[in-house]
């Protein structure tokens, strides 16, 4: 990157460190933090939307829909989330390729043959000839979708509880005023449920942050991948030989996560205070009493 870095073997100490930390691989490492933040930025709204749909379905009067919503919310209770992560990534991948093979392949064979999953080359997603970037983007997309499914189920749980926490009398009053079910839902239930949902959703956000290293297990080149790559000991054959520094890289990641979670905690505490203002909850009541 810098002119002084042309010959890494000749330089020393601080210059060496600067050159080392700005090498091409390290720039990739810094970009992988953006990958993690992108994952969070994409997953959070999608998961919230899926959770909202799940929670609304769980309250539906139509029986099959209610069962669907409730079983979606119950999905995550007894089973470790990492099982879902490992499962959904392969299952989604195979499901997509199977669907595509139905459309594009001649002579539809059942693809799970013996010890292989076989579809015709045209049905591969992305196609074998596609550039590496597409493969990475597809892998990332699968990861986002997997995270959204699992965290959507968590969110459905939280939102379902929040919807039940809205005082029943308010809904009955709204009905007494002649509002339809949809109107009660839109005008009374949804605007009021957020303050009840917020503690649960804040918790979920923290869990989501702390689940991001699992991206590594899904085959995405994330920060854990680069920390292991870059930290491993490098022999003289490399430009920047060094002993095993993985400990320092992981310490860096630890600090990153600690800062991230503690900043989030502070921001969420503010939002919570803002939303509690004037609400008929214990927190709102405390604020009312504290005000002069």
């Amino acid at each position, binding site marked *: 990157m810098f002119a002084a870095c042309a010959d890494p073997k000749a330089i020393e100490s601080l210059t060496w460190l600067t050159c080392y930390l700005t090498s091409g691989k390290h720039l990739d490492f810094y970009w992988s933090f953006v990958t993690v933040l992108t994952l969070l930025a994409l997953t959070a709204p999608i998961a919230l939307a899926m959770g909202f749909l799940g929670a609304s379905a769980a309250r539906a009067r139509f029986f099959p829909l209610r069962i669907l919503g409730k079983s979606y919310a119950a999905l995550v209770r007894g089973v*470790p*989330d990492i099982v879902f992560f*490992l499962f959904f990534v392969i299952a989604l991948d195979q499901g997509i390729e199977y669907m595509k093979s139905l459309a594009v392949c001649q002579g539809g064979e059942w693809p799970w043959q013996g*010890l292989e999953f076989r579809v015709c080359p045209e049905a591969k997603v992305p196609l074998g000839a596609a550039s590496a970037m597409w493969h990475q983007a597809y892998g990332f997309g699968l990861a986002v979708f997997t995270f959204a499914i699992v965290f959507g189920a968590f969110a459905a749980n939280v939102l379902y509880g929040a919807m039940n926490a809205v005082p029943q009398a308010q809904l009955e009053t709204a009905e007494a005023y002649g509002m339809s079910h949809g109107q009660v839902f839109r005008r009374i239930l949804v605007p009021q449920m957020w303050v009840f949902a917020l503690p649960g959703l804040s918790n979920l956000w923290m869990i989501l942050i702390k689940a991001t290293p699992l991206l590594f297990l899904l085959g995405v080149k994330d920060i854990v991948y680069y920390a292991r790559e870059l930290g491993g000991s490098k022999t003289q054959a490399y430009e920047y030989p060094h002993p095993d520094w*993985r400990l320092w890289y992981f310490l860096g990641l630890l600090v990153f996560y600690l800062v991230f979670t503690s900043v989030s905690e502070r921001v969420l505490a503010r939002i919570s205070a803002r939303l509690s203002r004037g609400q008929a909850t214990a927190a709102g009541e405390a604020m009312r009493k504290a005000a002069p």
Partner: protein
Amino acid sequence: MTCWETVQAYWLRSIGLGENLLPKSDFTLCQQVTLIGSGLIWNIYFGVLALAFGFLFAVAVALGKTSPQAALRVPADWFVFIFRGSPLFIQFFLAYETLQLLPKSGINLFGITVETAWTTRAWAGALFVLFLNTTAYAAEIFHGALKSIPRGDLEAAEAYGLTGWQKFRRIQWPTMLRLAWPAYTNEAIFLFHATTLVFFSGFPAFRQMGDALYYANYFADKTFNPFVPYPIVALYFIGLTLVVTGLFALVNRRLNRHLPSNAKSRIRLRPQLIR
């Protein structure tokens, strides 16, 4: 091989007994159920021991957090902050790398050489991380419970002349446990879930002796079919969750036995504590 022979060959495979070679081809449902079930031994081992050690230490940390002395409070606060604020996955990696830095030949302590090689093994290293991790989460729960002990109870205890250890033993401790128990049940459940991370996070599975998810992943990799092994793990864990909930509910009933039935705290499963 009949199914019964498979069970005999593999049901203790995860602790190194029985057939040495894992199945390589012609995978049967029986093999998958047996091996994954065998791996569950490790999940139970990690979960039970981490909870047992973590419980006492967590009470100590929780008391440290409520202490008026900064010398006790500040370290307790930092401990909880570090272990609750960072992913367990990273903690595993970090611990593994740290333990690897210990001198291979052992540490010389007053003339006695202490072996260090075993610390990088999952049974010790990962257990230590899980123990610290559950301590931090449980300490936060107990701290919350200590803070919500009714003030009247404490004042009454003082009026009766109870102080220090007696006040803690007779008043604070039982109430704290009773208040914390539902949340602590969740912590226990999610600790068991967290044990599945061990063999995916740096700690290698020695001689292919891994936990339930390790074997499930093995089968999924070999057969390219995730639809059999992962649901098997899921079912095993649902079973384990039910057992843990049942055991903790028994304790809960004992903790609440003096209360009228409408005032008892009920255990509700909440997915709050994934790491």
